[in-house]
């Protein structure tokens, strides 16, 4: 499975937009880009998934360029409760996106 690289940590303030970029240079044709969020003392929670271009849901947007070698998770107007670790993964469609390989994650700290 393709390995991902993302910043170890990011800081932001309430109300700002946060963009977390992930690199996945070896992404395969069957891989989808998937993001999970993990709060302390909880298991990870699915945020968003995409194959190419742009995907938006009620929580975030995911931007994927044509070469799919990177992606950007965009969190609009973050609040203190968005403080968490955000994991970028590439998930294989052929396994039903079930066998997940987690990278280091980005620890986002939102301050007042």
């Amino acid at each position, binding site marked *: 499975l393709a390995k991902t690289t993302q910043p170890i940590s990011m800081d932001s303030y309430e109300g700002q937009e946060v963009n977390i970029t992930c690199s996945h240079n070896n992404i395969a044709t069957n891989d*989808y880009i*998937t993001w999970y969020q993990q709060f302390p*003392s*909880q*298991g*990870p*929670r*699915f945020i968003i*998934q995409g194959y190419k271009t742009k995907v938006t849901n009620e929580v975030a947007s995911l931007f994927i360029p044509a070469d799919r070698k990177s992606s950007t998770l965009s969190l609009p107007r973050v609040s203190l409760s968005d403080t968490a670790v955000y*994991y970028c993964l590439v*998930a294989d469609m052929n396994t*039903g*996106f*079930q*066998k*997940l*390989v*987690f*990278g*280091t*994650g980005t620890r986002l700290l939102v301050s007042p």
Partner: protein
Amino acid sequence: SAVISQKPSRDICQRGTSLTIQCQVDSQVTMMFWYRQQPGQSLTLIATANQGSEATYESGFVIDKFPISRPNLTFSTLTVSNMSPEDSSIYLCSAPGRENNEQFFGPGTRLTVL
């Protein structure tokens, strides 16, 4: 969505003993997964628990150390055997939701080995 519960939520164990962690899913699923999250680290997949067959282990994990049971489509157990302080971690199970494109995770079992 899928609701996943784990027991125990935490435990403190002595070196050389074993602990069995239970994972219950509120719906029937073909595959369940077990992960380990060491302090301050990311998650590492231990094994895939298949119903009706032996678990499939990832590189670095062996059945003698982490035996897994999968007696039915909603339940699985992971045993951490002959524990040492290096086994102190959070152990999480996961299962797919109905849409299959996302995994739902249990709250984790925080294990401390003295």
